[in-house]
């Protein structure tokens, strides 16, 4: 069997973000990058499946981006992927989800992957589009936001996380793509010997021009901090008036009351 897991490198989300020169994305200077959290669940699940299937299964990890993403690829290799594809693109952050998905789809097209794993979204962009769009472009069965995964003889049984802690149980036939959510598993730490051994695993570099065929469908006009919360308001007076005001605020400003 052939498995693919797609990962993205994102900045540490604790960082302070400043707009770049064009004002459409963050300035990367001084940011520390790491593997997107949701992609860690994807890698872990892919590696677990790889271990379960044993010999004859090949697990490839793919990432699009500048040279720095090799570190994330090496982490995935140290976690147990067999080989890696680095789609070299210094300008990856400027591409929209449609382009990113189409690059991955172009890579995967003739390779006959049985299962593709992605994160449900990236922590920095948060569009939650890439995984499903790859599946659509490749004509694969697909489900999203999974918190449980089981594979048996060509059929995946997955549980999707729905609102309010409810889960939806789904079966899909491979070839298929799933997007992974927090709660699916606890990603392993790569062991130090495996980090050193990953040096010897193959990382294929592919210039993005060889795979990019699509124009962007959406553009970012600006990247900026959210409007500052004004100072808080102080409510005083009669209790029943106060209750009315607070109810109105809860309805207006929060999703808690409808």
């Amino acid at each position, binding site marked *: 069997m052939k498995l693919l897991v797609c990962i993205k490198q994102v900045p540490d989300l604790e960082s302070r973000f400043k707009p770049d020169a064009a004002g459409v994305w963050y300035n990367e200077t001084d940011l520390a990058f790491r593997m997107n959290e949701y992609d860690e669940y994807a890698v872990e699940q892919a590696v677990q499946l790889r271990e379960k299937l044993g010999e004859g299964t090949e697990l490839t990890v793919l990432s699009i981006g500048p040279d720095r993403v090799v570190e994330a690829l090496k982490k995935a290799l140290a976690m147990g992927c067999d080989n890696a594809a680095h789609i070299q693109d210094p300008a990856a952050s400027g591409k*929209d989800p449609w382009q990113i998905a189409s690059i991955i789809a172009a890579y995967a097209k003739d390779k006959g992957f049985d299962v593709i794993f992605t994160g449900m979204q990236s*922590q920095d962009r948060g569009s939650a589009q890439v995984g499903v769009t790859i599946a659509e472009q490749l004509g694969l069965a697909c489900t999203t936001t999974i918190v449980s995964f089981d594979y048996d003889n060509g059929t995946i049984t997955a549980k999707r996380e729905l609102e309010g802690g409810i889960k939806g149980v789904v079966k899909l036939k491979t070839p298929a793509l799933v997007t992974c959510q927090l709660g699916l598993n606890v990603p392993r730490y790569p062991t130090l010997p495996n980090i050193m051994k990953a040096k010897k695993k193959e990382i294929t570099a592919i210039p993005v021009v060889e795979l990019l065929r699509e124009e962007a469908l959406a553009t970012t006009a600006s*990247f900026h901090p959210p409007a500052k919360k004004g100072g808080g308001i102080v409510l005083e007076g009669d209790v029943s008036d106060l209750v009315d005001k607070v109810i109105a605020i809860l309805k207006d400003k929060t999703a808690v009351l409808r």
Partner: protein
Amino acid sequence: MKTLLIGEYREGKLLESTCELLGFANQLGAETAMLLVGSENQLPVYSGTLYLADVAACGEYNPGLHKKLILEAVQKESPDYIVFLHSSYGWDLAPRVAASLRIAQVSEIVAIVDGGFEVGCCNGKMRRTVKPATAQAVLTIQAGAFPVLQPGGSPEIRKLSATDGGALEFIGYEAAEKKDVDLAKAEVIVSAGRGVGKKDNIPVIAALAKALGGEMGASRPVVDAEWVSHSHQVGTTGQTVSPKLYVACGISGAIQHLAGMKKSDFIIAINKDKDAPIGEIADVLVVADVMQFVPALTARVAR
């Protein structure tokens, strides 16, 4: 301008959040048509066109089939925007529709702004203004970002049907697991502080937490006094939380407590003291006696 709104139906019920789509369309000033895979027994309270497919035949989760239905309605309506909630249903289905039509998708919109749509990014710390480059676009809106609108009336129904298209099989739902307090995951936390007065008053705070669908937290003095167990404690020696709504009842705002909750999206503090330090970070400071105000609020919320 025209929108096609995609309603949601789950476990045999039309979801109330569907009305947020109407709120969004209203802010856009757009004409609306709606599509729902649901039942005639539960219709949205609105008077426009409703493309209705029978949930009994089409299933609640069958994205391949639902996509077909939506594409059919898109053909008939030629909407500028096809709008979903950014929910487990919406984010799963929206990219399929966008990809089939080769049109842009803008995800999790929090506001309509000049020149496009505002979306969150970087874990909500930053915003982007995104503009579709295609004539039509698929949009998903953040839950709670737009007001609920119930314009009234009854929709004009056009029935849709489709068969097949499902590459997956939906087996069913699993109920949420019951578990102990997990403040880290709670979307609403109502916390008790020393201002609550005595242990016997704790149920009053718990009742508000329950009415708001959240968990009860507490400040350290309340835990130290053993009015509640340590698993409820918020602050440097307890848990650090960032719920959508944090209600601080009778909490003055010691720095140890603030460190544990100041990242909450929206903070309401109830305190007799107008100058309590909690006021510095609260979005709303209600100057009142906790034991008078909280039960009154609970009663209204529960209604």
